[in-house]
């Protein structure tokens, strides 16, 4: 075999490989775990909350899937879904913000990066916000901030416990300082929710960083996290550049945060609804009390 043939063969081989892979994805039967490489039947994976049966890796799920996992069927009622983002600064980097928005809206079917509403968890009423990482990295702009604030205000008014599922790279730079101010706005609403003696829990999922960590993600009465989720204030690369030294392997993982006292409990996704129910029930006496007081 000439060298040329060898290259041609190799190229052919690769080509064939790629096609099979693609067809696997498109018929949606099999999924390969990005962590351990185990190939699993997609239906089994979904039945297991998208957690790998073999290694326990938590695959990323979108906001609707998350809502399905947490809430009782047909109890989620979305609110403020009529808010849509604008381009307040006329921001353009390599691409225009307006184009990035349109693209994310088309690919996710969402107007912006969070779904908010009320629901029931094993018949216990609760307010729920779920960030969607697919929408521009879950970044927080005006719409995300406003929807979360309105949800908090709603749950303060209705005396509901509140769960916010965090998944975000931080503030949305394309909306400039307006994004940063959403951190303050949400924290203010949480202060009133807290003042009303209502329970607030963030669930930190992979990844929760930047401005979200420096506001509502860390303001829970109880803070829950998914196993191995990346949680931090500054990016690992930024820190490595400042320190010029290697960081611990588990740095900024949910486990690391729990070890340092910033996470109450790490909840595997397969046990999420059960754990939530337990916590909500344990707080129910309190809740009834504050309701009768009002």
């Amino acid at each position, binding site marked *: 075999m000439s060298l040329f043939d060898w290259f041609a063969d190799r190229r052919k081989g690769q080509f064939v490989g790629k096609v099979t892979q693609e067809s696997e994805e498109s018929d949606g039967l099999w999924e390969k775990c990005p962590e351990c490489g185990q190939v699993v039947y997609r239906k089994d994976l979904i039945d297991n909350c998208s957690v790998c049966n073999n290694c326990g890796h938590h695959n990323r799920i979108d906001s609707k899937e998350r809502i399905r996992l947490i809430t009782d069927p047909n109890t989620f009622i979305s609110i403020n879904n009529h808010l*849509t983002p604008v381009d307040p600064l006329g921001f353009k980097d390599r691409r225009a913000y307006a184009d990035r928005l349109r693209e994310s809206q088309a690919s996710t079917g969402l107007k912006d990066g969070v779904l908010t509403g009320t629901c029931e968890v094993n018949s216990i009423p609760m307010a729920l916000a779920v960030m969607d990482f697919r929408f521009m990295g879950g970044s927080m702009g005006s*719409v995300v901030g406003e929807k979360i604030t309105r949800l908090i205000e709603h749950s303060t008014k209705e005396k509901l416990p509140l769960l916010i599922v965090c998944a975000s790279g931080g503030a949305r730079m394309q909306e400039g300082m307006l994004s940063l101010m959403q*951190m303050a706005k949400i924290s203010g609403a949480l202060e009133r929710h807290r003042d009303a003696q209502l329970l607030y829990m963030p669930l930190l999922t992979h990844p929760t960083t*930047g401005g979200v960590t420096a506001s509502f993600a860390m303001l829970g009465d109880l803070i829950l996290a998914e196993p191995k989720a990346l949680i931090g204030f500054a990016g690992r690369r930024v820190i490595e550049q400042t320190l010029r030294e290697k960081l611990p392997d588990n740095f900024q993982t949910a486990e690391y945060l729990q070890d340092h006292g910033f996470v109450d409990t790490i909840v595997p996704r397969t046990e999420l609804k059960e754990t939530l129910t337990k916590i909500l029930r344990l707080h129910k006496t309190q809740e009834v009390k504050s309701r009768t007081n009002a």
Partner: protein
Amino acid sequence: MARRFLLEFEKPLVELENQIDQIRELARDSEVDVSQQLLQLETLAARRREEIFNALTPAQKIQVARHPQRPSTLDYIQMFCDDWVELHGDRNGTDDQALIGGLARIGEKSVLLIGQQKGRDTKENVARNFGMAKPGGYRKALRLMDHADRFNLPIICFIDTPGAYAGLIAEEQGQGEAIAVNLREMFRLKVPIIATVIGEGGSGGALGIGVADRLLMFEHSVYTVASPEACASILWRDAGKAPEAASALKITGPDLMKLGIVDEVLKEPSGGNNWAPLQAGDTLKNALEKHLSELLALSTSELRDNRYSKFRKMGKYLESQSIESEISV
């Protein structure tokens, strides 16, 4: 004047200034009257300086905001505060030198003052961690603000930081949590809070002492969601595009006033605050006194409700009239 730290765009002034210095020297040695000539040159220099500083780009404003000789928190305290008593420590094991605080009197009024403090030179900057506070700094700030709340002292915050410290120890001690708690608790406080961006307002690190009833900003100060350098390397994939990012991010006082974030932009002497620090001090003192007396006229509940609704309004979005589409899950 020769030891003044010059920024790139100030270089055209150098020649004029040198000329002025030379003539002064000459005049000292000989008995020739050069006052007329000096006056002419000085007027010209002042006009040139004003032209340059009126036309600063956002990227150049960052340089002015970061100018090593720009008055810092301690400088302003020295300029117009009486009876300054610095208070140390977060009561939790640390005393951050990048974020300082204490009691002082401004005019007739006792206040609690907190602010980030950068260093003048490398040695001092190492001690001050370049004005980048660690979680202990934010917790110290909150402890002092709680003290002010108990004793009914208005809170004055000076913002001047590239950002909260990003490092191993900061993550270990919960930088995110420390800032987050400040954001929430500042809404609870019953005393007036006035924050002023005296230099650089770097993202969450600035906001961590920035939830205020009034936010003031000096003319050449900047307040950013992310440093233009970081923004450029993330969005443009090229840190060299920082000047473009600085313009796109809308970081100057007038821009932020338009967005409803800043309440007043304070005029700087031409050449920037470092050129005439005492004048800057007067401007700031007068502004603080004015806003303070306005805020002290409000009841506690008015104050807190106003603070809430001020931040409540921030954000731009579209609200379509038709209450639309339930999301089906």
